[in-house]
């Protein structure tokens, strides 16, 4: 199945991509998507240890399964400060 991944901030600047589609097996979780992403862009291996996973605009857990046409993203710590 096809899963759409949206990339922002450091993920976008390091990979050079803002959006891509990954082919994932049925039953894949957010953790599996992050692994597939790191396979595509080895520079993004830090993602699982730093980011929070998001599915269809909502924070979810790494064990959440994805389904076809889901929109997935990985959220590094946000802007914080001031």
């Amino acid at each position, binding site marked *: 199945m096809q899963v759409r991944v*949206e990339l*922002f*901030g450091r993920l976008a600047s390091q990979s050079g991509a803002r959006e891509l589609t990954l082919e994932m097996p049925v039953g894949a979780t957010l953790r599996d998507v992050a692994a597939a992403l790191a396979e595509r862009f080895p*520079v993004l291996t830090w993602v699982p240890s730093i980011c929070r996973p998001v599915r269809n605009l*909502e924070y979810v857990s790494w064990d959440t399964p994805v389904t076809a046409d889901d929109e997935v993203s990985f959220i590094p710590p*946000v*802007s*914080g400060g*001031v």
Partner: protein
Amino acid sequence: MKLCMQGAVFVQITSDPLDPAPLMRLVEGPDMGAVVTFSGNVRNQNRGREVQYLEYDAYRPMAEREMRAIGEETATRWPCRIALQHRVGRLELGEASVLVVAACAHRAEAFEACRFAIDTLKERVPIWKREVWQDGEVWIEGAADAPVSAGTDASR
């Protein structure tokens, strides 16, 4: 541009300069005796570095959704009308990156509502800033700095 609230909440992500005046007018109301406004402005220095400018990147649909959820939660906890606005793109020194305006009947709750909303926004709304100096740049990820390009060694 005409701004419209949905219920008690207005949210917007924009690349235009921010102006608190229309937001204040938007949330004011006949029984709102207290309006508290927070403006987060670009500082000329951060973590000992001289900042040249900032570049904000957002996961826009999610960020708007989170901002609305924060507004709704705030308005439930402190009866208020509230506006949250965040700018994206390149921001120069002194420019406002974020505005939160809360209008309540009384001042204690207006301060608490505004403070809660900006604190929560800074925790969970997916917006990132890239800090650019004369001779380098980083993504600010919470308390950490993170390299912008793949070639750079992560300093974390």
